[in-house]
C-alpha cells in the first residue's frame, strides 16, 4: 500500500493555518473525519493526544507521523498536511515540523499498518521529496509529487 494510494484528496491540506501542536492534531483529525467510513473524531483526538504524551511522533527533519491503531476502525484512514511556517511539535531534533501524515488503522491489520508507517518514514528521509512536497501549491500537485517519489 502506497501513501499516494491511501490518500483521498479531501484528506489533504496544503499550507495549513494550524500554528500549535494541538491545532495541528485537531486539523489532521478533521481531515481523517472527511474520509469514507470514519465516524469517531473525538475518540481519535483523545487517542492521538495520549500517544503524543508518551513521546512526540515528530521523527526529525520537519516530519511528524501521528499514528494509532484502534479497535473500532475497520479500514486504514490517512490524512496529510503541510505547513509553510512550521509548527513546534516537540520533535526529537527540536526543529519545527512542516510535513504531517496521520495514519489511523484497524487493530486487526497491524502488519499493513507497520508497513505503511515504515514506507512513509523512509520516503520522507529524502530531502528532495521533502522539498518538493513543501513546494506543492495544490493538493493534486502534492499527490503527484508523492506518486513519482514512491518506489514502484
Amino acid at each position, binding site marked *: 500500500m502506497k501513501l499516494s494510494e491511501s490518500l483521498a484528496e479531501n484528506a489533504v491540506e496544503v499550507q495549513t493555518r494550524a500554528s500549535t501542536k494541538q491545532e495541528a492534531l485537531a486539523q489532521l483529525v478533521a481531515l481523517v473525519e472527511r474520509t469514507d467510513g470514519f465516524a469517531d473524531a473525538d475518540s481519535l483526538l483523545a487517542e492521538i493526544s495520549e*500517544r503524543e504524551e*508518551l*513521546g*512526540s511522533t515528530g*521523527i*526529525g527533519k520537519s516530519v511528524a507521523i501521528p*499514528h494509532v*491503531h484502534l479497535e473500532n476502525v475497520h479500514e486504514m484512514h490517512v490524512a496529510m498536511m503541510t505547513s509553510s511556517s512550521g509548527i513546534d511539535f516537540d520533535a*526529537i531534533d527540536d526543529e519545527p515540523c512542516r510535513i504531517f501524515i496521520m495514519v489511523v488503522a484497524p487493530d486487526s491489520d*497491524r502488519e499493513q499498518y*507497520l*508497513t505503511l*508507517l*515504515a*514506507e512513509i*518514514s*523512509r520516503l520522507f*528521509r529524502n530531502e528532495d521529496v521533502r522539498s518538493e512536497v513543501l513546494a506543492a501549491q495544490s493538493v493534486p500537485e502534492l499527490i503527484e509529487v508523492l506518486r513519482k517519489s514512491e*518506489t514502484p
Partner: protein
Amino acid sequence: MLKRILYVVNTTKEALEAATFVAEMAVIADAQIIAFGVVDTSAAQRLMRATGEAEAEIVVRLEEDTWHYLYDVEDTCKGVGAKIVLQQDEGFPDARIASAARKFKADLVVLPRTRRTGAAQSRLEKSIMSLIERLECPVLVV
C-alpha cells in the same frame, strides 16, 4: 538517575523480544526510550557484492525494514505505557550509535543480544567493543 535510554533496534526477532524488557525498565525508572535504528551502509555494500542488486535498492529495503522494526518496538512500548520516540540514521552502526548517545544525552545504551555465528558474530563483537570504548554511559546487552 535514568532519564533517557537509547535502545538500539536491529532487524532481528531478538530486538523485538528485548523491547518488552526495555519498556518495563523505562516505566519503572520513568525514563524515555529513544528507539534507534541504523541502516548499516557497509552491510548494504556487502549485500550488493553478494547479490549484484543495486545499492540504492538495498538501502531502501534496509531503511524500510528498520522503520518497520522501530514501529513494532514502539507498539510494544506503548502497550505498557513507556515513553518512546523513534530515530533512524545510516552509516557505520557503532559510530552512529555513539553519536546518537551523545546527541540525545543517553544515560544508558541497550543492545539486543543477537545469535550470530562465524564472521557475522566476530564483526558484532568487534562492533560492541568499539562502541563501549566510544561511549561515556553504560551499555546493557539484553
